[in-house]
């Protein structure tokens, strides 16, 4: 961009808008994750595999979910970590009504 003061002012304004949008989105997301604590959730894995568990916590990068009573196709795992970025990625999860 052109290094004039008008341009840098516009840039600063744009940056502030972006920062504000980012923090609104992030705060709402974190609150939503917190609200899932101890809720029954269903993870949708690849190949249409669905598993149920009790949601515990997520790390802040959303790389790992800590869950309890995970009902796997071969039995219940009392404590488990599910990672969206490992090979068998879940593509989403749903909080049970």
């Amino acid at each position, binding site marked *: 961009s052109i290094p004039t003061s008008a341009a840098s002012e516009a840039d600063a304004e744009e*940056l*502030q808008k972006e*920062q*504000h949008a*980012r*923090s609104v989105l*992030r*705060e709402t997301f*974190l609150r939503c*994750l*917190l609200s899932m604590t101890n809720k029954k959730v269903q993870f949708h*894995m*690849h*190949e249409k*595999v669905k*598993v149920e568990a009790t949601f*515990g*916590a*997520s*790390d*802040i990068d959303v790389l*790992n979910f*800590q*869950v*309890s009573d*995970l009902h*796997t196709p071969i039995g219940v*795992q009392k*404590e*488990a*970590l*599910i*990672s969206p970025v*490992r*090979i*068998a990625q879940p593509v989403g999860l749903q909080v049970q009504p």
Partner: protein
Amino acid sequence: SWRGSAAPPSERPGERRGAEMKKLYGKDAAKILAMETAMQLNFDRNCDLKQPKYWPVIPLKL
């Protein structure tokens, strides 16, 4: 010192993270950082306590 002024400044992870957060979230950085810290602590504590193992162990998608 023998390293002179070209030496990289010593890195302090906490400080660097604070600066990154400021860049990302502007005036809300402190609030978001506090929420994230609490959440990460909670996650770490649960993992220490419950020792969860990754599932699935074997990838479903081969």
